[in-house]
């Protein structure tokens, strides 16, 4: 669906103090692959338009199309989507887009997902797809977040992990850990990756998504640990990449 279509916001749900999930029901949605994105376009009453790309958070099986948007304080589109847009309001949307940073059950595993902040969004789409398909493909998620309040989908991650054939979820908090926190509390480094990742000999399929510096470092460390660069797929959110 490369053409723009007008969609109304069906529901909005806060995820963290700075992020919200927005649900839409596009007509004739052709389905998508986990990891793909959509473009959205906003039009002001004076005709001004702005367009951005957002990763799809929902699994293809979920019916509605969900994106999770992190508010960038100096942004133009993300503050509107997170703070101002209300159910019934309209925007234009097109997609799904992208054929590289995608995963489906047939692609196999083991699966290693490494997320920095809201880089979790497309990876959550993959975990949701994996669950919806009832797939037992071994999966591990390593999520780096600033504080425990910044962890997207925290309850769902716990439920996924506890479920049958659930993924192993590892969270590291880089800015502040609550009292009694037993997980990691530092930025992702080579040693942490070595402890969490599947051994390179198992040839995991790796997906890394987050801010540029995070993705650069994680991908370089994975290669240094012996992972095949051809199995490491990356997607980056620059400070203005998602605006």
């Amino acid at each position, binding site marked *: 669906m490369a053409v723009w279509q007008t969609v109304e916001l069906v529901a909005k749900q806060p995820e963290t103090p700075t992020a919200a999930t927005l649900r839409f029901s596009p007509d004739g949605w052709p389905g998508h692959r986990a990891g793909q994105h959509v473009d959205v376009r906003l*039009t002001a009453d004076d005709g001004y338009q702005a367009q951005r790309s957002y990763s799809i958070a929902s699994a293809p099986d979920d019916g509605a199309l969900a994106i999770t948007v992190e508010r960038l304080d100096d942004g133009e589109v993300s503050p509107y989507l997170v703070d*101002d847009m209300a159910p019934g309001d309209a925007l234009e949307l097109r997609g799904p887009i992208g054929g590289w940073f995608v995963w489906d059950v047939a692609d196999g595993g083991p699966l290693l997902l490494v997320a920095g902040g809201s880089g979790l969004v497309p990876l959550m789409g993959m975990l949701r797809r994996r669950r919806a398909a009832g797939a037992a493909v071994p999966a591990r998620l390593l999520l780096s977040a600033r504080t425990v309040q910044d962890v997207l989908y925290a309850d769902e991650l716990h439920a996924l992990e506890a479920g049958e054939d659930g993924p192993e979820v590892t969270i590291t908090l880089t800015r502040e850990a609550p009292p009694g926190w037993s997980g990691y509390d530092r930025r992702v480094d080579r040693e942490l990756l070595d402890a969490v990742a599947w051994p390179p000999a198992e040839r995991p399929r790796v997906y890394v998504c987050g801010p540029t510096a995070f993705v*650069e470092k994680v991908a370089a460390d994975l290669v240094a640990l012996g992972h095949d*660069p051809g199995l490491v797929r990356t997607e980056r959110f*620059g*400070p203005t*990449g998602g605006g």
Partner: protein
Amino acid sequence: MPPISRGFRRRHAADPAQEGRVPPGQHVVTDFPVLSAGPTPHTPLDEWSFQLVGAIDAPRAWTWEEFRALPAETVTKDIHCVTSWSKLDTTWEGVSVDTLLDGVVTEAEYVVAVCDGGYETNLPLEDVTGGKAWVAYGYDGEPLEAEHGGPARLIVPHLYFWKSAKWIRGLVLTEEDQPGFWEQNGYHNYGDPWREQRYWND
């Protein structure tokens, strides 16, 4: 008529100096976002070479030192990423593709840029000749950083920036058009930002 998104308005005043320079659907940024499909390759300069191969009378190759000895140009251009950011007045130093192709006899009408890491992108030959494309090793007066495509990347500023292949190692001249990496993964085969050719069927 597009729908009005109730309550949405422009946050930053339009800069008159930017008028006519920002293609439809783009917005101007001042930082330099990075996008790539996999880990950043790091090829040592003593192992680096640039190859000109394919439908050509005689293949050519340059070592890093030979490449750096070729006549260089410094150009200032606006660049446009398909993810909707544009960056104005970026300054690059490198070798014009015209210089690399000087004297080459070929029936080719297309080129494929080939890169470390396996990335490829395809372009019509006429879009990389006539002062429209460079193999750049300098950005803003400094050596080009690896995350932005160093030691050298293609610069084709009049097309979406994924055509400006990072970590370039050569050009393959072809008689048939051969879609590259993003071109096989949903993105437009040509990629003219002024016609908003972002994706297949645009």
